[in-house]
């Protein structure tokens, strides 16, 4: 077994009581005090997450827009500097290579923030489809140079504002600012109003060498507001309640973004001929055979990733994610099922170990914050 990778913050976890696990080859904190407690802290106050395992890939040069338009499903041409966009990258057949954010730093200068486990695959995929010359485009994997922290929750802005002169209320959802000075740190940061929890908050990028200082600075600043360090366990339950997809579960090589209900990020009518366009347009125009829905258990039991779903004893699909949702106190799941069954109220059974337990299709997202 190869050694687990660690983020630059690893040494800082210990004093906060982190319990770490192998997460796709990374030794990361699954929890600090407990998943339910951390989940609630983020929903009601604020949470700080080390998400430095995420990959960062830069795409620069005069042909970068043309290239990205060919590679991804969203319309990158809609971006202007200091705006971010959620997009997917697909295979020819419409299956998903990855989902990520594209940050437009400047004209001809983009930053892609990709899933940790997909970083090398994405980089190879991008490089192997690049037909431009070195003077036209450069693609670089800069993941090891960057620390990413996520500060999420209703007090996120108030907390971060105490350590910066930059007016954070100016940074609206899916916008960001570069060169933000936080406290007395030696490096400047990129601060973006984005996240993966369903709460308001920020994702902050800084040079790896300032990572620990940034972590301590924010935790200190948020102490009397109830800010706590949060592990990946709660990150997963938070994103799940907010219906944010996880690569490998809701989307994958076998699951297209249209099936996963992400058509808002798939612009089949954009001019550029992107990889997967034909297959995805066909899916949009003719419908798909299966769809991602929310399910709630009627019988006692918890749906889990991979559990099979039946309708009148016929196979109907499978659970992509499921748990007992901490905020909602319900046993719920996301499931990919046959389209004709994907209507609210339809009764299904979930195979939980030896038993088939009753569930019904419900509306998503399960959780939406009050604005």
């Amino acid at each position, binding site marked *: 077994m190869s050694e687990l990778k660690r983020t630059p913050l690893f040494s800082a976890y210990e004093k906060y009581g982190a319990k770490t696990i192998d997460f796709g080859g990374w030794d990361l904190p*699954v*929890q600090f005090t*407990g*998943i*339910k*407690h951390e*989940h609630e802290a983020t929903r009601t106050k604020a949470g700080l997450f080390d998400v430095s395992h995420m990959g960062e890939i830069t795409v620069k040069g005069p042909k970068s827009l043309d290239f990205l338009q060919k590679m991804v499903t969203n319309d990158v041409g809609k971006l202007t500097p200091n705006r971010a966009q959620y997009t997917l990258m697909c295979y020819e057949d419409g299956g998903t290579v990855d989902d990520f954010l594209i940050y437009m730093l400047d004209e001809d200068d983009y930053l892609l923030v990709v899933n940790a486990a997909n970083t090398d695959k994405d980089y190879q995929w991008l490089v192997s489809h690049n037909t431009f010359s070195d003077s036209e485009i450069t693609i670089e994997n800069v993941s090891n140079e960057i620390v990413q922290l996520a500060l999420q929750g209703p007090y996120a802005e108030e907390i971060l504002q105490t350590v910066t002169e930059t007016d954070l209320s100016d940074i609206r959802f899916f916008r960001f600012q570069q060169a933000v000075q936080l406290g007395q740190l030696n490096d400047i940061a990129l601060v973006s109003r984005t996240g993966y929890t369903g709460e308001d908050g920020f994702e902050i990028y800084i040079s790896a060498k300032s990572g620990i200082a940034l972590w301590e600075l924010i935790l200190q600043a948020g102490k009397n507001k109830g800010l706590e360090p949060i592990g990946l*366990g709660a990150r*997963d*339950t938070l994103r799940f309640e907010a219906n944010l997809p996880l690569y490998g579960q809701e989307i994958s090589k076998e699951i297209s973004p249209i099936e996963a209900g992400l058509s808002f990020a798939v612009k089949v009518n954009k001019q550029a001929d992107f990889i997967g366009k034909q297959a995805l347009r066909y899916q949009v125009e003719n419908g798909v055979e299966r769809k991602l829905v929310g399910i709630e258990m009627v019988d*006692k*039991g*918890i749906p*889990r990733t991979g559990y099979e779903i039946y309708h009148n004893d016929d196979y109907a699909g499978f659970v992509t994610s499921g*748990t*007992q949702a*901490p905020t909602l106190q319900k*046993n719920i799941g996301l499931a990919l099922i046959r389209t004709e069954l994907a209507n609210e109220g339809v009764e299904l059974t979930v195979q939980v*170990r030896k038993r088939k337990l009753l569930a019904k299709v419900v509306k998503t997202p399960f959780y939406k914050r009050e604005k």
Partner: protein
Amino acid sequence: MSVPKELLYSKEHEWVKKEDGKVRIGITDFAQDELGDIVFVELPEPGDELEVNEPFGSVESVKTVSELYAPISGKVIEVNEELEDSPEFVNESPYEKAWMVVIEPSEETELDDLLSADAYDEIVNQD
């Protein structure tokens, strides 16, 4: 991690308490701490037969499902119904409020294969 002296233990982190001819079973403090917040406990019905080292139920935390393995064979005569509504007892009181089943052992000699408190303590509390 707490390891009460008067109990016996399995390598699968169940505890066993002898009570005149019957045994009471639950999971250890170490097990509940490893699992994290317990949100669901699935137990057998009274009358079910358990077979040593075979799964007889499951404990679910927010994140994972773990099977319960019978530390000893026998017939279930009592089940802790309270855990259905209060699975958090497993975290709060693994040796008292969160006992899971009481069984009538069919092979008393199987008790000899279980670990003493000292032996179990060595497994879970070594650094």
